Structures are given as structure tokens and as C-alpha cells.
């Protein structure tokens, strides 16, 4: 007999959300209690035939009305303001040291990519306790929902658009991962686990290259760099601006002016569109010569996973700290040969494999 009354608490949000939750429970109990008491006492005490005082029965009182309008309203506004704070954190900007995880949802599995270690996993996510992570997610088909009850965390995983969420797991354990948005036949089997590991265990897990065959030693930045060559991006987007296109160095995070007169910040969603559909938002001053890459697994197409790798690489070029790395990468790119550190066998895209369902 197991009657769990609350999920485990394993993230920085869990406590603040639970505080609001239990405050609301208390308010619910109090108000329901008041109403129950009123109904039961009045209907029993004043039931037909009882000899109780019924002097001056009232059928309306402005002060009473104001009382029971204003008190609930003020309580409501208080809860509203209180609950908006964690909400703005969950979907707001992550701390700068948050490590990136890319998540691809498809019927009916979750595919994770660790940006810094390059490790991939299916339906499992290993995290280090106490370290902030930012999850960037996208769906390959219908709307899914990334939901980890123990983290009090949920975000819809939409097709065609990146959604992000960040959190800091703070308790070691194994937690359920659910798909919360109905996605078809095996919706209830699109589940998995989030493992929050101690620093030692995490280091061990990482050193082993992950827990199963999906392990990958290249980081997403490295893979992205290779893809940058493979797809020929480097020809137009070199170390400096040239006649064909702008350099990617230092581009990420800046605000650019577009050919249609609008301006836009270069973020994940901007880059995604820029890769698959460049004409939609071309930076002003360059010719419209890029024809874009289809999303898919066929020849000349790019998978959602590789798209995330490319974005990760371009992002790294925009980061001042990695400018030297990117310069080095460029040097190796001109050599036009895969470096010894990047054995080709690692370039097998597991997302591509997984697509044959």
C-alpha cells in the first residue's frame, strides 16, 4: 500500500513552488472550511420548524459584499505576485555558467545531447548535482512536453521552434521524466529518467563516455565545426567578412539589421531559421545567395541534431572566451583534413539512425 502525497524535490524551484502550493492548500482548506461551516450550520440551525431567533433577516449588505470581494482579491493578488517570481526564473535567462543540453523530442522518445561533453543519450539524462543546466528543446513531429515532476519543471517541446528552460538539480537521485503533451498512441511510454549524480559519479560517468552505446566523445561544438566544413559553410562564412557572407566570429548574441529593415538578435531560433531558410531573415548588406539546408536525413539535408551542433558551434564563435579556439578551428579547417582528435567514426549521427522508426 503506497499512497505518495508529493513527488521528490530535486531542483532549485521545487521548494519555492511547494511553498506556494502548500499556501494555496491552506487557503483552500480555510475557505472550503468556512463555506462548509456556513452551509451546514445555517441549513441545520435554521431548518424548518426550529425555534431559533430569526429577527431581521437580511437580503443584502454592501459591506459584507465588499468584504468577501476584497479579501479574496487581495489574497489572490498576493499569490499571483508570489508565483510570478519563480515562473520568470524558470523561463527566464539562465546563469552564464549553465551548461547546455539539447533535447530532441520525437514520437516516442527523447534524445539528449550534452553540449560540453558531446555525450548523447536516449530517454535518459545524466546531470551533475548543483550545476545549472539549460535545456534547448525541439520536436521533430508533434507537440511534446518535457516534464520532470521532481524538478517541478515542464516545457512544451514544439515542432519548428526552440523552447528553453533552465534549472539547477540539487539532490542526487533518479527521477521520472514524462511527456506531458499528448502525442499519439504510445504517449504514455514516452518516458525516461533523469539521473542526478554526485560530482564524482558524474565525472566517472563522463569519463566512461556515458552509460551506453550512445556515448560520444566529441563536444557539440566540435561536431558543429566539422559540419561547418562538411556542408561548405566555411566557404562563405570565413574568418573575415567576404563578398558572399558575414563571418560567424562574434556574431552570436549581437543585434543585426535585416534586409527587410527590421532588426533581430542572433539567438538559437534566429540561427535555425538562417540555416534552413536563409532568405527569411537575411542580414542587410549581403547578397541573397545562400539556399539553405533542408531538415531531414537524406542527401544534402541536415538533421535536427546536427542543426543543434551547428548552432552550438556558431554560438561558441560568438563567445569571446572561445575566440582562440575558433581561430584554431579555422586553421585546421583550412588544412581541410580531420584532425586526429576527431576520429571519423564519431561522426555517425545517432539521431539519424533513430529516425528510422
Amino acid at each position, binding site marked *: 500500500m503506497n499512497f505518495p502525497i508529493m513527488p521528490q524535490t530535486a531542483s532549485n524551484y521545487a521548494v519555492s513552488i511547494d511553498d506556494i502550493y502548500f499556501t494555496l492548500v491552506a487557503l483552500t482548506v480555510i475557505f472550503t472550511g468556512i463555506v462548509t461551516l456556513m452551509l451546514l450550520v445555517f441549513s441545520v440551525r435554521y431548518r424548518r420548524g426550529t425555534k431559533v431567533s430569526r429577527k431581521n433577516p437580511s437580503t443584502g449588505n454592501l459591506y459584507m459584499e465588499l468584504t468577501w470581494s476584497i479579501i479574496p482579491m487581495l489574497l489572490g493578488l498576493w499569490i499571483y505576485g508570489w508565483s510570478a517570481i519563480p515562473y520568470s526564473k524558470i523561463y527566464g535567462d539562465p546563469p552564464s555558467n549553465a551548461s547546455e543540453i539539447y533535447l530532441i523530442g520525437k514520437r516516442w522518445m527523447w534524445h539528449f545531447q550534452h553540449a560540453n561533453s558531446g555525450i548523447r543519450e536516449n530517454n535518459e539524462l545524466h546531470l551533475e548535482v548543483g550545476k545549472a543546466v539549460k535545456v534547448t528543446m525541439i520536436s521533430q513531429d508533434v507537440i511534446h512536453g518535457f516534464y520532470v515532476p521532481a524538478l517541478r519543471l515542464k516545457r512544451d517541446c514544439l515542432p519548428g521552434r526552440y523552447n528553453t528552460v533552465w534549472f539547477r538539480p540539487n539532490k542526487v537521485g533518479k527521477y521520472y521524466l514524462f511527456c506531458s503533451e499528448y502525442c499519439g498512441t504510445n504517449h504514455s511510454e514516452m518516458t525516461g529518467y533523469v539521473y542526478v549524480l554526485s560530482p564524482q559519479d558524474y565525472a566517472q560517468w563522463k569519463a566512461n563516455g556515458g552509460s551506453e552505446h550512445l556515448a560520444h566523445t566529441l563536444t557539440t561544438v566540435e561536431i558543429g565545426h566539422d559540419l561547418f566544413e562538411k556542408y561548405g559553410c566555411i566557404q562563405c562564412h570565413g574568418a573575415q567578412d567576404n563578398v558572399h557572407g558575414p563571418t560567424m566570429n562574434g556574431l552570436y548574441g549581437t543585434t543585426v539589421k535585416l534586409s*527587410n529593415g527590421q532588426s533581430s538578435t542572433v539567438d538559437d531560433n534566429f540561427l535555425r531559421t538562417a540555416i534552413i531558410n*536563409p*532568405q*527569411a531573415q537575411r542580414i542587410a548588406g549581403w*547578397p*541573397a545567395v545562400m539556399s539553405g539546408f*533542408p*531538415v531531414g536525413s537524406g542527401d544534402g539535408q541536415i538533421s535536427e541534431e546536427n542543426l543543434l551542433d551547428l548552432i552550438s558551434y556558431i554560438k561558441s564563435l560568438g563567445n569571446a572566451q572561445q575566440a582562440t579556439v575558433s581561430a584554431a578551428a579555422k586553421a585546421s579547417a583550412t588544412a581541410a583534413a580531420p584532425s586526429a582528435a576527431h576520429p571519423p567514426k564519431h561522426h555517425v549521427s545517432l539521431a539519424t539512425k533513430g529516425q528510422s522508426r
Partner: protein
Amino acid sequence: MSLELQHPAVAPQRLSHQFEQIDQQNEIYIVGMWTFLVTEIMFFGALFVALTVYRSVYPDAFEQAHSALNVWLGLTNTFILLTSSFTAAMAVRSKMLGQRVLTLLFLGITIVCAFGFLGVKYVEYSAEFREHHFPGPNFQWSQTVSPSTAQGDLAANSQVALGVPKIGVNEFPANYQPQQLELHKRELFFSLYFVMTGLHGFHVIIGILVLSTLWLLIYFNHPTVDDYMPVELAGLYWHFVDIVWIFLYPLVYLIGKQ
């Protein structure tokens, strides 16, 4: 219309069992019709919202897609509908004054205009079908860009092979293509165009049925149209159909032109 017209001495009126007075009955018909028109506005409203949202998301593609529509045919239709609205109003007035022949004449002109509108729409639609602008598996976009919009990015777009046949919807997204995406944005525009003008055209057809029925009833002096109220209600409906077009025409045909 002036209020004095509402109580013509010549038109006897029939009172339904649930009403007390003829004024009440007439007021109720009018209020009921207006309430119905409110639901119609909400019906079209959702489509206008969708059009506005997508226009702001894909301004360039929508602007380009606009250019494929025939503004002059649309303008013709605007005049046809405005004329028909005028004659519908005149028909109501004639009916109130008991001028049977004039009523038949004005109703007749309204019906002819409505057919004229559908005729022009048929010309437009068949051109769009010919050019494969009807959304769906056969949608294509091979049109060269008109000089007025041939600026940098649009010129470049015409280099992109936009005419690739669309993939089957169930194969998405394994192999959809960015050119396809550009194509689809135009398809999105034409989807909304066909849904909106199609729905409007459907209302025109309903209007023709209603007006023709009225015409025949009046022609054969049927007692149900002794009263002016049926004509009045049909007139209200017809004005609504007209007004929807007054919004459709600029939003679908005109905005986006330089």
C-alpha cells in the same frame, strides 16, 4: 431609413403566436438578425486574426503572394457588391412603400450583381487553379517576380527552385526543404485566401438563394411576403456580406502593394 417608413399602411403583417404585438415581432426579427450577424463577425474574425498573425510573421512572402492576385478583378467585385448593397437597400425601401414592381426590379438587380460577383470570382479562381495556386499537393510557385517588387532578396528568391512538388503531408518532417518552406509560406497565404474568399463566396451563394426565393414569393404574391420584414432581414444579411468583402478586399488584395 427613416422611422416613418416602418409602418406602411399597405403591408398587412402576420403575428406569430408567441408575440403580443406586431412591433414586438418586428423588433425581435431585427434584433435576432443582428445577433446572428455578430456570430458571423466572430466567424470571420478568427480568420482575420490568423491572416494578421501570419502576415506579421512572414511579411515578405505574403507581400510577394499578394502580387499574384488580380487587384482589378477584386476592385470590380468591390463595385459590384457595393452596387448590389445599394439596390438591396432600395428594395427594402420599395417594399416598405408597397411598390411591388420596384421591389422586384431592385431585388432582381441585387441577384444579378451577386451572380456577377460569383462570375468574376470564377475567373479569378480558375486563373489561380491554372497557376497551381490552390493549396495542397499540387501547389506551385513558378511566377517571376513583378518589376515593382524585384528587389534584392526577392530577385534572389526567384533563383531558388520554388516549383518543387510538395511532399506528402505524412512524410513531414523527414525531408522537408527550405525552398519548400518558402513555397509553403505562399501556400499559407493562399490557404487563408481561399478559405476566406471561399467562405465569403459561400455566403454570397446563400444570399442568392435567399434573395431569389424572396423574388419568387413576391412575384407570385405569396402571403408570407406581404410584410416587408423578410426583405428587410435579407437586406441586412446582404449588407453584412458586402461589409465582409469591404474588409477582405484591402486586407487580402491591397495591403502589401508598394
